[in-house]
Structures are given as structure tokens and as C-alpha cells.
């Protein structure tokens, strides 16, 4: 076992790992941060997306030892300091951007990365930007609305329902 230390949601953390320990397992089992979901475990679905040094990646396809020393942000790091929902999270609630909610952590993390690179995306930009995140409830229209709203744009014209 090898101890891996990194910064997760602003705190220095460490946990024991094997070579094969995935970042998703490190977060969930090593640190108890179960907000990061494992959907497909084959890097198709995007439920496990977290940010590594500000970049969105699928944590089920990265080994924990490969990102030792990195700064990782998970869904648990997206709330405001007082515990209230962050802007993107609030927009998902306001626009009902979830049905069962399983894909939501990855959707929020991918949306945050998208908005960091493109603060005023078009609807098409959002749909392309979330290409790697699958919602099995097919709740895409409201997810797109939520992201548009989180970017401060009018959502009245977004998508047919």
C-alpha cells in the first residue's frame, strides 16, 4: 500500500492506495466522499467527473497515484462556504435539472468546467460540452436550461419540452 496525499476541496488529505486504486475509489472509499458517483465504470457516462487542477476528468479512469499532489474538486466542494447551494447547483434545483439525480454530480462538475472556459455559452455549446455526461432519465432539456440559467442567460427560449 502507498499513501497518497492530495488536496481535495481545499483540504490536504491522504489515504492508503494500491497501484490499481482509481481516483473514484480513493474519493469514495478512502475519503468517504460519496458524492462522486460511479455509473458505468467504463469512462462512458460521466457520473464520476471531478476537477483535477481545474480540469474536468472522469475519476474512474485515472489512478489515484497518478494524481498525487494534485488539487481535486468534487461535488462536495461546489457548495458555498455557508453550506448553501452554489450557483450551478441552485440552477439545477430551480430548473429541475435532474430526475433520479444519479448523474447530477458529474453534470454539475462538467457544467462548472464548461462555464469556466465559456461563461456565456450558447445552447449548442452546452449540449456539446455535456456530450460526455449521460442522463439515463433523459432529463437533458432541463439540465441545459439549468446551465444556461447558471450562466446568467434567459432560459425562456431554451429547448422544446
Amino acid at each position: 500500500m502507498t499513501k497518497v496525499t492530495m488536496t481535495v476541496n481545499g483540504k490536504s488529505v491522504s489515504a492508503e492506495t494500491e497501484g490499481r486504486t482509481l481516483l473514484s475509489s480513493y474519493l469514495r472509499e478512502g475519503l468517504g466522499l460519496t458524492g462522486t458517483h460511479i455509473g458505468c465504470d467504463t469512462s462512458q457516462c460521466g457520473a464520476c467527473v471531478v476537477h483535477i487542477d481545474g480540469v474536468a476528468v472522469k475519476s474512474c479512469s485515472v489512478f489515484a497515484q497518478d494524481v498525487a499532489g494534485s488539487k481535486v474538486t468534487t461535488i462536495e466542494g461546489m457548495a458555498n462556504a455557508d453550506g448553501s447551494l452554489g450557483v450551478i447547483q441552485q440552477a439545477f434545483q430551480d430548473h429541475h435539472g435532474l430526475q433520479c439525480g444519479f448523474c447530477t454530480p458529474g453534470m454539475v462538475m462538467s457544467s462548472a468546467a464548461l462555464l469556466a472556459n465559456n461563461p456565456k455559452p450558447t445552447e449548442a455549446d452546452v449540449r456539446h460540452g455535456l456530450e460526455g455526461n449521460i442522463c439515463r432519465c433523459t432529463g437533458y432539456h432541463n439540465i441545459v436550461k439549468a446551465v444556461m440559467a447558471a450562466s446568467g442567460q434567459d432560459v425562456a427560449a431554451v429547448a422544446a419540452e
Partner: protein
Amino acid sequence: MQNFDFVKPSSVAEAVAALAKSGAQALSGGQTLTPTMKQRLATPDVLVSLTGIAELKGVKQNGGVLWVGAATPHVQVAKEAAAVFAGLAGLAGGIGDPAVRNRGTIGGSIANNDPAACYPSAVLGSGATVITNKRRIAADDYFTGMFSTALAEGEIVTAVEFPIPKRSAYAKFNQPASRFALTGVFVSQATDGSVRVAVTGASNNGVFRWKAAEAALTANFSASALVGLTVDATDMIGDLHGTAAYRANLVKVMTGRAVTSSR
């Protein structure tokens, strides 16, 4: 997946030494290898990460040549090659999805040589040179069949050098679930007017050059130059996504689209 020892060298020399061990396997962005290991189709004893080696990263222009470090992620190529090599940047920006592009690398893609991967078509379709820790390999000699390359045991791709073409484009017909190419075609017209056409996703033998189209497009760089050509379906991939004849037709269709969108 089966366990292994993980090592993360900080130089190519250290990586080469680590790969000399029995059962060692290089890991780049891991967007293909990690799922492959979960399925136990690869079971290395030692995994040698190439992600911590600074000399393997970057996009640099030297006159008419674009140097891309092997461990450069797709997202960076999409951004930094855009001004000088639109076809390459467009291809890189269309691989997988954003999270895959943030992690996956050109070196990993061409070392694996998946028959439906995008990057092999850019390397072959622009007549690039693959640089390893040992030698320089012309693209025409590098790809040797499905999941097969000229790389020797323990040899690492360190960079790819692309001659910057006059114009180029990549046209991909997506397999919508995997986002791999059902068929993808890379077309480039060099500064001397010669044209290369490389096809991925279609053939049982992996990426290949469509030489009849190259000759026709060198004479007349227009989709109309392809009208009289046909593609032999004999060696094409046939599966539940499309028959061999369907892919053979796609080769022609996507070549035309790539020509029309070249810039």
C-alpha cells in the same frame, strides 16, 4: 482489475529504464488503457505513467513543422494547433468528449492504434514523422495493422512532427455511443499541392491511405473529383453498427466532406 506496481518517472530516460522490467506497460492519459485493464484485457505487472514527464508535453511550431509532444492532451492540441493546422486541431477537438480530451494524449492514441481512433488518420494523412526514444519513423512505416505499430518492446513515442499542410480537414462519422469514428477521413493538401487521404474506422487492417482519391484530388482538389471512384468493401469492418459496404460508402462520403471543409 488486477493489481500492479505504479511508477511515475519524471524523464524519458527513467521511463525507458522502468519499462525494461518484465510485465511493464506504459500509461499515458489512460482513457483507453484503464477501461482495457478493468476488463482484464491488459494485466501489466508494472504501470509506468508518462504523465509526469515535462519533455513529452507541448505544441511548438518550427517553420513548416508542428511538433506535438506525445503526452500532450487533445484539448491542448485543439487549442494550440488551431491557427496553423486546422485539420489537426479540429480532429483533436472532436475526440471523445471534453473529459476524455482533457486526459487522452496523441502518443497514447497512436501507440495503441485502435482501428477506430482518430489520431492515426492525421498522422498518416499528413505524412507526419513519429519520434521515439530511439528513432524517427515515417507514418507510412509506423502503422502496421489493427492495434499494431512499428514500435519495439519498451520503445516510447516521444513526439509527432507534422509538416504543416496548405489546407486540411478531418471528417468523422461518429459512432454515437462510443464517439469513436464509425468512419473518419483526414485529408491534407501539402504546400507542393500533393494530397493525402487517410481513413480510420473502416478497415480490418486499421488506418490506411486511399491512394486513388489522393491522385484524383492532387489533380483537382474538389469533392467532385471523387465522383467516379469506388471503394473496395472486401477488407472493411462489418458489425452491428454498419456493414462493410456501408463503411466503404462512408469512406467516399466522408472524404468528400473533408475536402469541402478543408482550410
